[in-house]
Every structure is written in C-alpha cells, then in structure tokens.
C-alpha cells in the first residue's frame, strides 16, 4: 500500500469509528446511566463537541449522550494495547493562551481531582532575560521514548500502540521511580486516601479513575473519551482553542473549532517540541507565542491571590 492509501484508510477508519460512536451514544441517550464512570452527568443544555461521520465537528446537547461505561467497556488487555491504527498527537498554540485555566478545571472535574492536584498545569515561562514571558499549558507529553516507562519495574506504566503512555493504578507499586525519571514533573502521587467516592468496578488504565492511594497518576489524553469519538476535555474546555488534538496517521488535528493538517500547522507556525534535546520524543508540539492574542498580564491580573503567588517571581522580573 502506498503512503497515501494508508493515510486514506486511516481516515476512513477514524470517520467510521466516530460515526459508530456518535450513533451509539445518541441511541443510548435515553438509557439510564449506572454512573460509576469518571464522567459526571453533564447537565442538560451543556453542549458537547463531537466528530460527525463526515469529519466535521458538531455540537450537540449533552443530554443526548450517555457517559456510562458501556461505551468504554474494554478489557484490561485492550486498555494496555491501545486503539489500533491510531497515533494520537496534540498541539498547543502558545499564541492563544491567556491562562484562563478552563482546561485545568475541566480536567480536574473530569477526573474527580481536588483543586490542588493538577494533571494539567499552566506555567509562566520566560526563556531568556530579554525574552517576554508567556503562558505555557503543560500536559503529559506521552513521549515516544518515555523515561518513565523505561524505569517502571512492574510494567505499571506503559506505552500503547496509539502513542499514549498510561498508568495501570492496579499494578503500580508506588515506588515513584517514574516520577524521579520524568524530566517534565508530569506525574503526581496519591499521598493520601483520594476519597472520590467512586467504585472501581469498571476501572481500566484508560479510565484512570478512581485514583488509588499510594499510586502514581497523570494526564492520560482521555482515551476513554477518544473511544467515544469525543475530544479530551481540556481541548473542548479552552475558550481560545489553544489545544489541538488529533491523529498523526491521518495528519489532522482539531481544536474543536477548526480542523487542520498537522504537518501544515507545524510548518506554518514553526511548531517545536519542548526540550527536544532530552531525546524523549514527545507527542505534543508547541506553536511559539508569536503574534499573541492576549498580553501576558491578562492571565495574571484576574487570578485569585494564591494563584498569583505562583507567578510572582516571573512577573516581578518583568517590572
């Protein structure tokens, strides 16, 4: 098969799965939900973005969706193998970020995390003395050569064929070696009993929820959402379309508003990977903060005091 054809087939598959997911989710809408999954019931009138059968993003009322686990009932083995034929990738557009923190809260809500636990965090970066600071949302990079996976002694954290690096918190022994090995401080540990009050009957490495005491967890790129044809919550929650999510095999990414070609986007906007020199080969690209939509202060001034505290050093350097 030629490269073109493979890509084409990949796209067809993507659309097919998306279509099935859409139809299934809508059909199941009336079913009562045995809600033990990590997704909360979205209240009626909340809009959810879906990928339609012809590859377009449509917005539908979330009451038509049933987030119960039947959509993501997959075996533990499947959760380890990943979704065949896919290669997930994310692009973060730094020029659009104003630290609205909607991604952070959406992620926390989705994964039932307390406010102090951030799988996704926004840093204020300043690369050089004269350089101007910029907001820098940071998820897990799902590296292709992940230092955390290399060091895990029990295969609790693993790399899937669709590119995701996940953690099986039923396997993790909590040695924290992966945390020491991750150069991006992505991972967090459950130092105390998480008390989320969710049953773990349907837990797989894909759902990541509920958290378990004494184990490690991190951003998972929401593979259970992807299986349902939905975008990860941070992508849909961002009001400025900072996050693009998609499939490298299909060479498309979408931020919910526009669907673009990955390679074109990286080419036009000078996409790069964070700390390329570490050789971890992240699956996440950044678009440099050029022609910004917002001045950096916009993301600082509206913050509550305790959050301002975090960025004080950098802001003060500016003054």
């Amino acid at each position, binding site marked *: 098969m030629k490269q073109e054809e493979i890509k084409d087939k990949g796209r067809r598959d993507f659309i097919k799965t998306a279509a099935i997911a859409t139809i299934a989710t809508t059909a199941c809408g009336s079913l009562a939900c045995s809600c033990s999954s990590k997704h909360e019931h979205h209240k009626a009138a909340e809009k959810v973005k879906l990928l339609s059968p012809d590859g377009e993003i449509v917005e539908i009322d979330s009451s038509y969706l049933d987030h119960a686990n039947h959509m993501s009932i997959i075996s533990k083995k499947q959760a380890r193998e990943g979704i065949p034929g896919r290669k997930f990738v994310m692009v973060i557009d730094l020029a659009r970020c104003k630290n609205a923190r909607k991604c952070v809260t959406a992620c926390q809500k989705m994964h039932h995390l307390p406010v102090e636990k951030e799988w996704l965090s926004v840093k*204020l*970066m300043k690369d050089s003395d004269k350089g101007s600071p910029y907001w820098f949302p940071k998820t897990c990079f799902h590296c292709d050569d992940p230092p955390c996976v290399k060091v895990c002694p*029990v295969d*609790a954290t693993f790399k899937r064929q669709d590119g995701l690096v996940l953690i099986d918190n039923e396997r993790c022994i909590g*040695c*924290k070696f992966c945390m*020491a*090995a991750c150069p991006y401080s992505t991972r967090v540990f459950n130092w105390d009993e998480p008390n989320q009050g969710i049953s773990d009957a349907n837990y797989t490495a894909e759902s990541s929820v509920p958290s378990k005491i*004494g184990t490690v967890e991190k951003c998972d790129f929401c593979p259970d959402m992807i299986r349902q044809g939905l975008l990860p919550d941070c992508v849909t929650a961002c009001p400025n379309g900072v996050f693009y999510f998609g499939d490298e095999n299909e060479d498309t990414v979408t931020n919910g508003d526009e669907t673009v070609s990955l390679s074109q986007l990286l080419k036009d906007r000078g996409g790069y990977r964070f700390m390329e020199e570490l050789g971890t080969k992240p699956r996440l690209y950044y678009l440099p903060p050029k022609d910004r939509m917002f001045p950096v202060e916009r993301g600082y001034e509206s913050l509550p005091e305790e959050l301002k505290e975090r960025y004080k050093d950098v802001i003060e350097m500016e003054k």
Partner: protein
Amino acid sequence: MELNTFQQTAFDHQRPTIEKFGKRAWFWTFFFLLWIAVGGYALYLQIAKGHGVTGMRDNVVWGLFIVNFIFFIGISYAGAIISGLLLLFKVSWGKPIIRLAQMMTIISVIVGPIFILLCVGRFDRLHYLFIYPRIQSPMTWDVLAILTYFVGSVLFLYMALIKDFAVYRDAKLNIPKWKQKLYSALSLGYRGAASQKRHLIRSQNLLAIILIPLSIMVSSILSWIFGMTLRPGWHSTIFGPYFVLAALYSGCGVLIVAMWVYRKMYKLENYFTDRHFTYLGYTMMILAAGYGYFTFSEYFTSWFSSEVWDNEVINKLFNPAEYGWWTLFANVVGIIIPMLIVAIPKTRTPNVISLVAFCMVIALWVKRYLIIVPTLESPLVPMQDTRQEYVKYSATWPEWALTFAGIATFLLFFTLMSKFVTVVPVSGLEDTKTHHEHAKDHVKKEDIQPA
C-alpha cells in the same frame, strides 16, 4: 578442634561473651527494641494514612528513606570488599577484623533494603516485583543484584564461621542445650581434617572472588537508579565509581568505629591492636583522597561548564541560605579532616581515628542527602507551586523515627550477633604482634604492678 595457645587465649578471653548474655546486653537490647517500636508505630501511621505523613511530595519524591538505603547498602558493600580482599590476599594482620567486616556486610544488607521498601507506596503489591518484573528497569536490576549479593554474603560469613562453630561445639561451653545443639548443627561436622580444610578454604576464596566484583556491580547499579535519569546532579557518568568509592569509604569508617566499640566493651586490645587502627586509618586516608577527587571533579565540571540545570543544583549546594553549610560540613568533615588526622603522626591514635571516622560516617550520610534532595528540588520545568511542603523537603517525625529505628535495628543485630559468635574469629588466628608491640605490652604490665 585443635587450637594453638594464641587461639586458645583468644577463645578463653571471649568465652564469657557468648556464654552469658549479660545485663548490659539486655539493657541495650531493650533500648534498641524501644526505638524499633517507635519506628513501628511510625510505619503503622504511614501504612494507615499513606505517604502523606512523610515529608515527601510530588517534587521531592524520595527523602530520608532513600538516603538511608544508599547509606546502609554502601556500608554493606564495603564490608564485603574489605573482608574479601583481606581473605584473598591472606593478609595476616587482617584476620581478627574479618568477622567484624562480614557482620557489617550482612547486617547492613538486611537493614538497607528495608528503607527502599519504605519508599514504596503499596506494600500489598510488593510481590508484583516478581510476578511482573520488567528487566529494563534499574529497579529490577537492583532487586536481583541485592538478592544475589545477600545470598552470597550470607554464605561467605557462614563459611568463615564453620570452623568457629566447631570450636564452640567442642569447648563444653556453659550454655543451654538448644544453643549447643545449634552450634553442633551449624558446624556441619567439621573436625579440621585436611580435606575439610582444603574444601573450606577453596569455597571461601571462590566466594570472595565472586563477592568483590559483585559488590562493585551492585553498588554501581544502585547509583544508576539516579544516574540513568535525566536529572541535573544525577545524570553523571562517574556516578557508578563515585558510589563504589563512597561506599568503601563510609564502610571503612564504620568498621573503625565498630572495632573501637568492641575493643572497649570486650577488652579486645590484644586483637584489635593499635596497628589495626593505623592501617585502617591509612586505608581511610587513601579512600578519602579518591573520594575527594571524585567529589571535586563532579562539582568542578558542572560549575565550570555551568549548564542552566547543573547551575541550579550547584547554586543550591553552595548557597549558605540553602545547603551551603551542609556542603561545607560534608566536605570538611567527610574529606579533609580524616586525611589530615591520619597524616599527622601525633593524631594517629585509635581514639582520634575512631572519633574522626565516626564524624566522617555522619558526613557521608549528609553527603547522600545532598545528592538526593537538592536535585529533586530542582526540576527542569519550574515548579511554580505555592505549597511550601511541595517546594522544599523537610523530613517529618515518622521519617526520623523510622531512620532511628533502622539504626537501632543495625545495632541490635550487632549486639545479638556478638552474643552468638565471638567478635574475633578464634580459629585461624595468628599472633601477628611485632616484637616491639610485645615489648610495649610487657612494659605496660610492669608499669601497673604495685611497687
């Protein structure tokens, strides 16, 4: 078992130590058990409430426990290497101290791994290490290496003990029946026949040959838990040899201190002579020089090339407001003073050497802390966290309680073991005192004779 007169004196001298447990030993046993009980309570808290009771957090994911782990494991390797070398090269003056070095090896290889287990969040899943092992993880290498090493060093100590067990068996000691039976079982029917002797010596030599490279390997693997990561201050090619040397050095110090304590307690001046202190002092000095050289290369190269991340760690280490004073302590007490003390003939006495060795051991513990904590406090991505306990590590009481419980376990094992076997091996002992030393002893005895 036939003993020559020198060996017989040595045995008679130590006979009471294994015949009677004694008030003092009881006291210390209870004292150590008390400490262990406090540690046990801390452990209960840690298991019941989670690792939140420790000072470890998402940035500094390892703290005192891993420091203790490196520390004890280091002592153990040193014991194996020192006793192995003394045995292999048939160093005759080394014979009385081999047992002590071997005891040190075993005891610390039991205590050390307890501390790595304390770093593990899920005790209930420890067996996963064997059910789902992943061979590319340095942690798995470490588990395998330590287990192998443990078996090897237990055998090594046991081989060396067989002859002595035969002595205890034949000596008609005034001890309970079970103990007598145990000695006799453990001596494996050793009678000192020529063939038995030959086999024993061969297997001991073989074990020494295996153990020495093994402990170098295991020590390096331990260092690779850090060296294999992408962290400033850890990701260094010299970490393997650096750890090996630091291990040898600190172990040498512990051996000196142990010698001093037993010499005082059991009046073993005839066996742990001044010469032993001097020789081990020289060894300590050479190791100090080597270790100092590594430390200097490590700091100097990263300071001079001053990469951003390396710089951050170096700044933390040398800033008096952060770890500056500790760095100073670790290097002055841990490197410079031991070298000076041994170099100056006036201060080259057992008491001074032992005191300096003791302080050096503490300085090396601090050094391990300085390897672990500042690096973890300097992540590559800025922390930008307002929670003080996440930004800066400070150990909590359960961590300290468990640390002291570990030290108490270490000392308790020493106490119990020295009540079970003689600290100075009896069989195979030679009178290695020089004429000069004999003459000195003579003079001393006359001195104290009443006129």
